[in-house]
């Protein structure tokens, strides 16, 4: 099978390194375009929805703090991606915002994604507990080629 576009989820931690290395090797071999993807979790406001007592400014300070931390993680992911893509002609790094699992499923099922490569522990470094089930949910919902790393 020939791949024209490969997408790999990258989070700047060890959890995405193996998947990234494999994606880079595959992109080189097949001369495919490679996209690194990081997702800033947009579900935090909802996640702390059970807190009815905090004043608005405290909630906002918390959400800004989490957002800033995730932006730093996105930067680490970018550096991780850029450190290994030498020699690949078409490569780019993308940061999306929203529900990570929904975004990953959407990316995996996009018609122009020939192969989506994901480490099952990706995004746990900055994410909510439900992301531990990311691999399982992706495997259940993906309609296009998907490669899961442990």
């Amino acid at each position, binding site marked *: 099978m020939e791949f024209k576009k490969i997408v790999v989820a990258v989070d700047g931690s060890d959890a995405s390194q193996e998947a990234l290395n494999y994606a880079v090797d595959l992109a080189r071999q097949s001369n495919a375009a490679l996209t690194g993807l990081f997702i800033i979790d947009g579900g935090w406001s909802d996640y702390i*929805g*059970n807190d009815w*007592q*905090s004043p608005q400014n*405290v909630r906002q300070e*918390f959400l800004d703090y989490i957002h800033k*931390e995730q932006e730093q993680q996105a930067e680490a992911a970018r550096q991780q991606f850029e450190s290994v893509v030498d020699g690949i002609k078409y490569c780019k790094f993308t940061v999306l915002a929203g529900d990570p699992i929904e975004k990953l499923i959407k990316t995996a099922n996009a018609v122009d994604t020939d192969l989506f490569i994901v480490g099952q522990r990706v995004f746990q470094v900055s*994410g909510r*507990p439900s*992301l531990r089930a990311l691999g399982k949910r992706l495997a259940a919902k993906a309609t296009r080629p998907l490669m899961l790393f442990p």
Partner: protein
Amino acid sequence: MSDTGFFQKLPRALPGLALIVITMVVIRQWIEPWMGNAVVFGTKGWLIKVTHLNYILLGIIMGMLYRNVFFGGKMPEILSDGFKLSRLMIKTGIILLGSLYTFNAIVQLGSMAVFLIGGFVVLTIIMVLWFGTLLGLDRSMIGVMANALSICGVTAAVATSPGVEAKASHVAYAIATILGFGILTMFISPFIGHALGLTDLQYGAWIGTGILNSGQVLAAALAFNPNVAPGTAVSVAEIWNIMRVISIPFAVFAVTVWYWSGKVGMEGAERKGLGTLLVEKFPVFVIGFLGMVFLTSMGAFGDVGLKGGPPASETIKMMRLWMTWIFGFGLIGLGGYIDFKELRQAGGAPLKLGLIVGVTKYVLALVVVFLIKDYLVAI
């Protein structure tokens, strides 16, 4: 996050609000009366007598079902603004709850609450710092768990995290642990309370001290006794809860000092003083609650209906009826924020720490309430 005003948001909130209101009306007008009359295992009203399900717990269950079953794990966009208003509803209910007390009653209950809450906050923080270190948890995680387990659950986690540089994943696991434990205790506490024959005062003091998260304290109190009147479980538990809320800035200060005292390298550290924390993190609804207590004490709404005194005025009775509906609406909304996907995946050291400390606190609070029951004076 949208910065539009309340009245601009209101039309967008209408679908969610409508669902909440319709759900509570159906529960109170049809489901609860049906449960009270249904004969199960040969006993009329078994469903209520044995399960202790009332409109409050049914409302929370419906909120959870909406999110996790009917809507596949996520509130639809069209309903989310309405469900967000649940926070405002509960705050409004708590402010109105101020009409249950006079200043004398507040001083009487508050002094007992200060003793119990103060003792438990300090003990729990020490316990978490010790156990957390023993379990090898990250220092920032221990800081978040210390306040979340000792004061107001999610609220305390939100208030503490920026000051102790908590990682998002740490906060997330702390919140999942607290919520999971809170939901469990919310359902079992009414059983235990009735089985042990606790009075409203004893029960309110126990859950106000022992349950980790404030939303679940409110729900567990109303599940034990749905009446909103002086001396009922909710009137006691919420005084305890307000004491906990007031202690947030102090606990954030203490834990932040502890965190930075053991940290090597202070570059980029932004530490706030107690004065700043008091201004920034003090929950404004407490002032509204105290304002309502003041107005009630001045007789603005007529007689309160304290034990041995004249009956409650019509205004006060009407406000109490509103409160039952407002709390019912608000708790459906809070139920809609309980995500089973997140709770299922909670685990690891935070869960261990949460269970050890949470269970200890829950049981110890019950033991202490039993030991001091002769000193607990009903209002």
